[in-house]
């Protein structure tokens, strides 16, 4: 390997050529590295620093864990933002995984137009969330397409789904299960294609039908894929912002029913200009997400698609 060779040469002393190569290397990565240090690594420490101050428009006095104590007693955060985010995650993750897996299994068949179908199922994941959210608002409006269809099926629903407190979050869950299923499908597709063909041949020889083969052979063999998809989906769900912002409007309405953790952070930091408090929420959220990732790493080792 190149690195090993390099080390051996290094032992013989760095020639001019080696020095030049190293300097050019540093030169080529200088801008990106400066960028990552300034806009990624440094902000982690800076966020923690800011969270220890009563920092509104201007930097105020040092308050130690004051912001964290305030957050601990913040009922809007716990009863709405955290609760909604957890409910959202608990429902959207299994839904998008089930839908994504079903799509993956179907488009993994060797049949015609496979590429077209994959593309069709994947596209909602690629379209702008703002556009999808406004289309969904239109379809789920009080006199929208969805209520019209329900009406013809004999079920009368006259409210807009996003503006009713009881249906707003479930509607967002349904919407995002749909838009994220395409991405999940691609992950599962990669995992499915890593299963060797002879496994299916063996199942076929044993006379197992498609349904049985799926549950007894495919599903268990996808175990690493399940873990990976679950973790990525959970991390994504905990960070949900776009639909809450667009559909609930920045205030997370109606009556906080669509308030999520990130939207609350946005409201506190940008809306109310409480930078210290906003940074505190950011740090707590980071710890949340980091813990999820760490637990996954410890329990299941390296995440793998296949």
């Amino acid at each position, binding site marked *: 390997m190149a690195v090993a060779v390099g080390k051996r040469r290094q032992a013989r002393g760095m020639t001019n050529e080696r020095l030049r190569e190293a300097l050019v290397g540093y030169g080529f990565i200088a*801008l990106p590295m400066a960028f990552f240090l300034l806009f990624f690594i440094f902000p982690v420490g800076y*966020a923690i620093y800011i969270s220890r101050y009563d920092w509104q428009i201007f930097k105020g006095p040092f308050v130690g864990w004051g912001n964290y104590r305030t957050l601990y007693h913040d009922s809007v955060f716990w009863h709405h933002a955290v609760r909604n985010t957890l409910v959202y995650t608990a429902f959207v993750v299994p839904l998008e995984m089930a839908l994504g897996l079903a799509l993956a299994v179907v488009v993994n068949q060797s049949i015609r137009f496979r590429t077209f179908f994959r593309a069709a199922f994947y596209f909602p994941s690629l379209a702008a969330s703002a*556009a999808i959210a406004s289309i969904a608002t239109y379809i789920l409006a009080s006199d929208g397409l969805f209520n019209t269809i329900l009406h013809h099926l004999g079920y009368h629903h006259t409210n807009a789904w996003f503006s009713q407190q009881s249906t707003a979050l479930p509607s967002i869950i349904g919407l995002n299960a749909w838009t994220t299923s395409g991405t999940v499908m691609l992950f599962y597709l990669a995992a499915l294609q890593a299963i060797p063909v002879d496994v299916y041949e063996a199942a076929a020889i044993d006379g197992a039908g498609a349904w049985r083969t799926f549950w007894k052979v495919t599903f268990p063999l996808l175990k690493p894929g399940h873990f990976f998809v679950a973790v990525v989906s959970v991390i994504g769900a905990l960070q949900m912002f776009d639909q809450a912002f667009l559909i609930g409007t920045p205030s997370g309405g109606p009556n906080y029913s669509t308030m999520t953790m990130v939207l609350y952070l946005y409201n506190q930091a940008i809306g109310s200009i409480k930078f210290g408090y906003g940074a505190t929420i950011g740090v707590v959220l980071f710890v949340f997400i980091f813990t999820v990732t760490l637990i996954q790493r410890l329990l299941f080792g390296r995440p793998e698609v296949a």
Partner: protein
Amino acid sequence: MSSGEHPPIAPLAAAEELVLEGETAKGAPGATYGIPGRERGDRIRTAIAYAVMFLVAVLFAIPFLWSVSTSFRTLADTLAGFSLLPRHWTTSGYHEAFHTFSFGRYTLNSAIIAGAITLSNLVLASLGGYAFARLRFPGREALFMLVLGTLMIPDQLRLVPIYLMLVNWIPGWVVHLGWHDASFINRDGVILIQLVSATSLFLMRQYFLTIPRDLEEAAKLDGAGYFKTYRKVMLPLAGPALAAVGILMFQGTWNALFWPAILLQDKNQFTIPIGIANFHFAYTTLWPPLMAASVLAILPVLLLFVLFQRYFVAGVAAVGVKG
């Protein structure tokens, strides 16, 4: 891919394999294996699969088709009950979106921001990726792990620190570059904080690792320097990776809501998603122009997707499952 050489982000590697090596159909359970009596079952299964796929594809397409249909309606038409196609076809929705609600301006802004970020990612990530893949320098592996480590840092954690840096520090720094009275709570800020991403750098490095060394050796014998080797030998060979990075960055920044929502405050600099959000908050039921704006937001990505489908897969692992 050998596991020792690559960083512990297998999904990216897997996605890259999908992109760069094309689709493989191994393991597709629908194939016939020459077992007597299986053929009829397979045919039935295939027919069911077709039916399901077709149905789901239609279901997936309905929201998009419905928005296109509405974008060509009059406002009165949208209130007059269900009809599949517009009763009176009109482009007034688009006209209003463009002129009355400034979506022409927003489209331009989106193109500028997405274009600038894409270009800068291509340049910085290919240079850096080449260095990380090919040039030997002390601390290379550690620095690369640091780059990958940035993928673990969520945007929310960076929101407040970056906002404050853009307000308080950066304008003071760029004065030394001769840029006076700079402000970064605007389009420039959105571009500045996304000049390069770990994902682009990673994808470029992985691709450069797969290019055989012989060509570079030949260039070296011809007396070409490192930059010339990068520019004349490596870049021309890196087409697929450049395409993947370019498409990934363009699609992501074209659709992005988070940083623009934080940094864009002047209406003249709004991107399409921010324009849609604001329109949506202000005029909830003016459907035709809103749907026209949505079509406008979706169309470029759809076009790119139709033309360069396989490169999009790289974005999957990179961005994760975004709601």
